[in-house]
């Protein structure tokens, strides 16, 4: 092998190694993004179940039940959009809703809350965890195109938070940096 062809071969081998490394990195990024989106979809499904349960809670006013119905429908929109995004990167969205007994905030299960303040407090706690999840997702997702969607959804979850805080007589906007903490 001449020096020229050896250099060429070395360059080609180096390029191939870089391409392989880039391909590995892209594959790992896709795997990571698929896992993050899958988790977000699970949480959105749980949020939809929580609001749909609240929409039937006798302790809430008719206006509050209507708001719960609207928010539940918005969570379903999130599930649909995130599902399409996950399919777009080769993933399969988790299917099926959790049972109300399996929707929890800390040790408290959705099925256990009855009184108005408890129902609204549960929803508030769930939204805080959801916002926190999205906040983390923005630091983890590798594909920029996903961040426009997740950003718009995180903003909407923050709006749910503000409404729930007001309903509970709290400051609706206690912080300039909403991270769910």
């Amino acid at each position: 092998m001449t020096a020229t062809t050896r250099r060429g071969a070395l360059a080609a081998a180096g390029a191939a190694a870089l391409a392989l490394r880039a391909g590995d990195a892209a594959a790992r990024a896709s795997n990571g993004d698929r896992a993050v989106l899958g988790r977000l979809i699970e949480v959105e499904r749980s949020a939809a179940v929580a609001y749909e349960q609240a929409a039937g809670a006798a302790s809430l006013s008719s206006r509050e039940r209507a708001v719960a119905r609207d928010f539940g429908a918005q969570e379903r929109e999130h599930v649909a959009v995130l599902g399409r995004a996950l399919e777009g990167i080769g993933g399969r969205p988790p299917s099926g809703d959790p049972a109300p007994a399996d929707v929890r905030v800390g040790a408290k299960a959705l099925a256990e809350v009855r009184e108005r303040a408890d129902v609204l407090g549960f929803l508030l706690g769930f939204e805080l965890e959801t916002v926190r999840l999205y906040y983390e997702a923005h630091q983890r997702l590798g594909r920029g195109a996903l961040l426009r969607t997740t950003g718009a959804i995180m903003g909407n979850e923050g709006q749910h938070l503000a409404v729930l805080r007001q309903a509970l007589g709290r400051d609706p906007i206690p912080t300039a940096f909403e991270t769910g903490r």
Partner: protein
Amino acid sequence: MVDRRGFIVVGAAAGATALLPGCGGGDDRDEEGIATETGEESSSAAAADVGLLNRVLEAERELAAAYADAVAPAMRGGRWTAVERLLTQERDHVDALVEAIGQLGAAPARRPGRYDFGAARTAAGALALAVHLENRAIAAYLDALPRLTSPDLRGTAASMLTSDAEHLVVLRRELGEDPVPSAFAGGAG
């Protein structure tokens, strides 16, 4: 609750108990496929982030000026004290963005001398102006998010986007409108 100094200086990921799969902080980002950068690439990425942050900064500055110069005067009489809270939080966003740009080794873009919000407005007109500018700031964040290279900055930007989205709830309520008319802040789907 998160204050600006702790948030920006300590870094967005610090102290978080991970909720996401494989999310243990920032140390394993290479394992997630985000390539290690050379010094030159890192510098270029920082410069790109500075440009994006400056665009968001411009939107937040105008928003803060609108609350101070157009909304607060139109809501005089103490009827609506929320305007002070909104103004304070927009100023917090401005300060955070200036600080973030400084941490990237750059200077923030110069602010315009003054903003022209037109003649004195009715309360409803002032609130509608605030709604318009909040939506514009959210759009600026949504435009920046996919292109910011720093994961911590993406988290910071998302938290301020969400704060601005929450402001819309307060403004729309005061206007007698549906506080959450869409499942997607800024209309992005």
